């Protein structure tokens, strides 16, 4: 199903990313009474990021339920409820707080469909917001989604626009398995066009955000925006950059990336996450293997530096990729 085909039937509004998410949730919860939503501060308060604004009013305490500070319990409940025929969405708010729930995610949610021989489905959405924004420090900034991608059985979604967040959230909720739905805090108040009504964005279909011929940039989440900014700048310098957003890293759309590298011969991977054993390594390994003959230069990776997140703004800035550092990497790559 092509997204553009749908749009022609629908009204397009400019919505904040956060509101596009709420719209998806509301539409889905109206459609399916087995969906419920739990998390801290997501009830009457409407969420720390306003990511559930209005939902408690509409659906009430049973289906939109505030939780104590029990991430393990929340996710454990999500797993059990999903096994028992409901479709829970468990909101962790800051991704960093998911650590104690890791066992429930890995050992239970990701594993049970396989181990039960397909007899038990775990249609669980775990929602969380990641990313370094405004000096939140080491406990409120991490991007470790590669961990989830390392575990067979989990799907990993990284929406980078208002439109994607709505279409991907709907797909996540309707998926019969566990989905890690990881938003970026930076995006929440950013506006973008969003079709009204029902549309799904399929998992495993990358978005070619910008066409180009000299260099391919693979970027996820906030880095898509930075890459687009860099690409616009580089165009003025005569460098034509193609920007690819995989949107989901599990499943991962290798094909779109390989075709792009086939065309450009040069790949830069930009990831806010850590480099070592991160998704940037996987994407590089895939292209280095399957696109071996297409590469005119070594693949470059630009990621956050290998440090915890410093609180100090100068240090934090130094740690993170930026449109400028992306542009500089591209220049290095084309001159290689």
């Amino acid at each position, binding site marked *: 199903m092509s997204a553009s085909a749908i749009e022609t039937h629908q009204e397009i509004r400019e919505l904040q990313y956060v509101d596009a998410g709420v719209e998806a949730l509301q539409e889905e919860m109206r459609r399916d009474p087995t969906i419920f939503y739990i998390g801290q501060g997501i009830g009457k308060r409407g969420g720390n990021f306003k990511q559930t604004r209005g939902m408690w009013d509409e659906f009430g305490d049973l289906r939109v339920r505030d939780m*104590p500070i*029990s991430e393990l*319990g929340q996710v454990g409940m999500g797993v*059990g409820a999903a096994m028992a025929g409901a479709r*829970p969405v468990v909101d962790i708010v800051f991704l960093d707080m998911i650590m104690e729930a890791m066992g429930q995610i890995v050992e239970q949610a990701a594993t049970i469909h396989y181990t039960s021989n397909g007899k038990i489905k775990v249609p669980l959405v775990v929602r969380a917001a990641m990313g370094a924004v405004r000096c939140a420090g080491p406990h409120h900034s991490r991007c470790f989604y590669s961990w989830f991608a390392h575990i067979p059985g989990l799907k990993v979604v990284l929406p980078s626009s208002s439109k994607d967040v709505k279409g991907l959230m709907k797909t996540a909720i309707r998926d019969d398995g566990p989905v890690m739905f990881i938003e970026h805090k930076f995006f929440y108040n950013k506006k973008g066009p969003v079709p009204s009504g029902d549309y799904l964005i399929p998992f495993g279909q990358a978005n070619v955000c910008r066409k180009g011929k000299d260099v391919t940039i693979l970027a996820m989440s906030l880095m898509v925006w930075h890459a687009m900014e860099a690409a616009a700048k580089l165009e003025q310098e005569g460098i034509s950059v193609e920007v690819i957003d995989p949107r989901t890293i599990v499943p991962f759309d290798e094909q779109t990336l390989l075709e792009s590298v086939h065309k450009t011969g040069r790949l830069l991977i930009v990831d806010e996450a850590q480099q070592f054993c991160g998704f940037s390594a996987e994407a590089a390994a895939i292209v280095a293997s399957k696109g071996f003959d297409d590469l005119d230069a070594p693949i470059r990776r630009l990621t956050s530096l290998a440090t915890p997140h410093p609180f100090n703004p100068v240090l934090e800035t130094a740690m993170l990729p930026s449109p400028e550092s992306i542009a500089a990497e591209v220049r290095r790559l084309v001159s290689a």
Partner: protein
Amino acid sequence: MEATKDLALALYRSMRRIREFELRLQQVYRSGVMPGFIHLYVGEEAVASGVCANLTREDYVTSTHRGHGHAIAKGVHMGECFAEIWGKTRGVNGGRGGSMHIYDPSCGFLGTNGIVGAGVPMASGAAMASLVKGSGQVAVSFFGDGAVNNCAFHEGINLAAALRLPAIFVCENNMYATETPFHRVTANTNVASRGAAYGLPGISVDGNDVLEIHKVAGEAIRRARAGDGPTLIECTTYRHLGHFEGDPGTGYRSKEEIAEWKLRDPIERLRNAVVASRLSDAQDLNAIDSEVDVEVEQAYQFAAASPEADAATVSQFVFA
């Protein structure tokens, strides 16, 4: 004796089925053909049988690494259970799960579990699903004394109390976690007393008295179904055998202790009580024994005759 004859015999049969099933498993395991590890429940059958006799097929159970008894009591097909533990394709999960990963949604059995404590919040979740669906189901979580010291116990039970979920938390306190005595690593070993911390009733029961367990669990389940919230039930019991098959279970437990607990065997105890109270007689009970023997033998045969797994299926079912 308060119980009806039907109930007493049903509980007797339930326990006997678990016991004979496991002793047959043990035999096969000892013959060396069974992969992995098994943790036998012998001596603790009253808990699974007493609790599950109160449940409908639709109600949910989450279980543990020592979960064969829960599976059988909740209604998993005995042959499929045998085959599963044996890793055979006729197993309820095609042999992919084995002893610690038995799942059967057809009878609300949400799994044995290799992770201590993990089933506790999962039961709260199943209970939450029941509320959301308005289905009236309850969820029971079985777990050991070892789980009480674990974080999952805390959050799972605390949440159930906060949300007044239709859940029942059944601690099988056999006083050891592997070889570690509960009291050596725990300041307060009175598990029932921990209920108060969470604001839910905590009840202590003789875990080898199946009728008492049946009664107490029945009340808790009725309360849960009526919307009156969860209950914590501590059943003090004992495993006759080692922690896993292969552990003699004697290095860390005295012969006297083991012998003493064997005298309190829940099956013999019910049998004697039934006979003594003339609720039924040896003939009835022996008839059940024979039926169970046949059933177990059939279960074994069912499993033994199972075709081997096909390596080509290894990547099936990673995603739903």
